[in-house]
């Protein structure tokens, strides 16, 4: 029986938008997978599962979803963000990333050009991070059921040391090292989403941090726990570790690097940079006396505080004028103020 073409045979490049049929399991989907994803991401697409050869020892395994709006923002996009976010989660466990998966939920009507830019960006981010995207999936949902595109990833990494990195290892005397200035990603997305006419364009800090994080371990620093700063910002990450570890942490506000443009944008909107999102920064709790040596291994890093005592599970911030206050989790996202 001769093959009967149910769909228009025009090549992918001439189709401007994602159609329901691109997720329908037929020829169009095949085309999309081969020309859009396989050509760029090099998955092992002959089977639904990738087969990995891993070094011996223990593995780290993580998953994450990405729903950022707008898809493109100064300094990154949803594709690079998906790679960086997944790689960073692995790195925080002390793992060198090996392979990622990527599942796309596409909204019917999404411009093919938009998808191509995102997939190109993912491919580039993966290459730069030295990690492969080995398997994936595509679904198309009706217009209105998704906001252009959602990406879900998973990642596998190989642990580079035997000691576990976890809050339970944090003890009094530990020093808190912050890998760089904070607040850029949140303000970059905010200004792109809301069309804020800020004087200077703030670029997201979105970046893979596994090189930096693993350099601490390889440099022989006594790292007890690491956490990348994402939603909720620096404050939320430190609070979560302090609570999980059951320790009191004191941070020094004047040691926390915030760029002038980020600080100005935060002042304008009434945001606290301590709670603004980042995508390329992390904190490390390191053994007493090793903070400065750790900071010296990371460009832009600073020792911002320390674990003062066991018990309590709370974080105190010493303000720039020297008074102390407790930091707490916010109930939701920060909303810009009136005046």
């Amino acid at each position, binding site marked *: 029986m001769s093959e009967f073409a149910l769909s228009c045979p025009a090549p992918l490049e001439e189709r401007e938008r994602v159609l329901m049929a691109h997720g329908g399991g037929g020829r169009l989907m095949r085309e999309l997978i081969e020309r859009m994803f396989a050509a760029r991401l090099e998955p092992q697409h002959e089977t639904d599962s990738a087969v990995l050869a891993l070094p011996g020892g223990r593995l780290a395994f993580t998953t994450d979803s990405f729903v950022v709006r707008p898809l493109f923002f100064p300094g990154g996009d949803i594709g690079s963000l998906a790679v960086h976010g997944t790689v960073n989660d692995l790195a925080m466990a002390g793992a060198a990333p090996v392979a990622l998966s990527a599942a796309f939920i596409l909204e019917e009507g999404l411009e093919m050009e938009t998808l191509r830019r995102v997939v190109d960006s993912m491919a580039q981010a993966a290459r730069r991070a030295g990690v492969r995207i080995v398997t994936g999936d595509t679904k198309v949902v009706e217009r209105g059921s998704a906001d252009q595109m959602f990406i879900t990833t998973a990642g596998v990494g190989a642990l580079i040391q035997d000691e576990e990195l976890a809050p339970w290892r944090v003890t009094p005397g530990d020093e808190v090292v912050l890998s760089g200035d904070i607040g850029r990603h949140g303000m970059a997305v905010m200004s792109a989403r*809301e069309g*804020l006419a800020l004087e200077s364009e703030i670029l997201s800090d979105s970046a893979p941090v596994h090189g930096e994080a693993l350099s601490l371990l390889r440099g022989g620093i006594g790292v007890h726990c690491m956490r990348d700063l994402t939603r909720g910002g620096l404050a939320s990450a430190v609070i979560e570790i302090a609570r999980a570890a059951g320790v009191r942490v004191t941070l020094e506000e*004047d040691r926390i690097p915030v760029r*002038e443009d980020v*600080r*100005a944008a935060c*002042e304008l*909107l*009434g945001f*606290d940079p301590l709670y603004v999102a980042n995508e390329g920064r992390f904190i490390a709790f390191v053994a007493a006396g090793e903070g400065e040596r750790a900071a010296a291994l990371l460009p832009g890093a600073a020792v911002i505080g320390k674990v003062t005592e066991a018990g309590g599970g*709370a974080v105190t911030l010493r*303000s*720039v*004028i*020297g*008074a*102390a*206050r*407790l*930091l*707490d989790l*916010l*109930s*939701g996202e*920060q*909303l*810009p*103020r*009136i*005046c």
Partner: protein
Amino acid sequence: MRHLDEYRDAARARALAAEIARVMTRPWRIMEICGGQTHAILRFGIDQLLPPGLELVHGPGCPVCVTPLERIDRAIALAETPGAVLASFGDMLRVPGSGTDLLSARARGARVAMVYSPLDAVRLAEKEQDSQIVFFAVGFETTVPGVALAVREAQRRGLNNFSILSAHVLVPPALRAILGSPQNRIQGVLAAGHVCTVEGYADYEPIARQFGAPVVVTGFEPVDLLQGILLCVRQLEEGRAEVENQYSRAVRREGNPAAKTMVREMFEPVDRPWRGIGVIPLSGLALRPAWREFDAEARFPYSGREAREPAECISGLVLQGAKKPPECPAFGTRCTPERPLGAPMVSSEGACAAYYRYGRHHV
């Protein structure tokens, strides 16, 4: 923003705090009017630097907090009106009305747009000509000129789908009501610097005289606040009750005459209820009849039920400086930012939110 550093200088802050302690001979109670000042005091821990006996109480200067339930219910009803979009500043969205809040209404399908300036709402009206865009005009004297400009701009562009729901309120009538109340405990006042950039401070002079309370126009940074407190304490110690201007880098006695003229041409004072406090005569601003076509109240009929506050919420006492947030039995337990009973727990300028956010519910 580099200039901010000099107003956050630890050495200057400590020197000012020491000077306040030196001139003080007895306890004083001072109210900072503005919620932005309340947040700065708690965020930087300024109260911890002050000598014992100097009590700071928090005033009504949180526009979101004092916006009456009826206005919020009305805004929600507008957002639920087919064909209408309610445009609002972000920190109004979580404030509870008598039944729900704007964010929850949006989750159920009401059309609510978050904007950053009134002009954003005019641009939205130009873009969405098939929708009626209503801007929820909330704020003190500071924000009114921006709204007046937006209405003029809508008129200039010939937009007949733009209107405002005015919840604007004025500081001096509220200050008069607080100082004149039989329960008043306030001896000196820090007036809100930003508000005075527009209206100046001549209106405070008769108030200071009448109630024998010094008024110091004060900025928002730690050094500003400590200087304002020092000026206020000096007056109290010397038995003076004058208006002084700490915030002279931004405020002149006459304010901004061009902005004032524009506001007076478009708005007139009206009696307005303040949430938790009650009606304060001539404390609100409404569009004058000549601008009626831009008034959402004239454009959209509303027959709301009478709105009632949760009985347990003491926000009225908090807003008048009669009680502090931790004195409320519900504070941090039955009233949290996640499940607020009243507006001061959710607004970014609310006193209850400041106490909660800056960790004062633990101590």
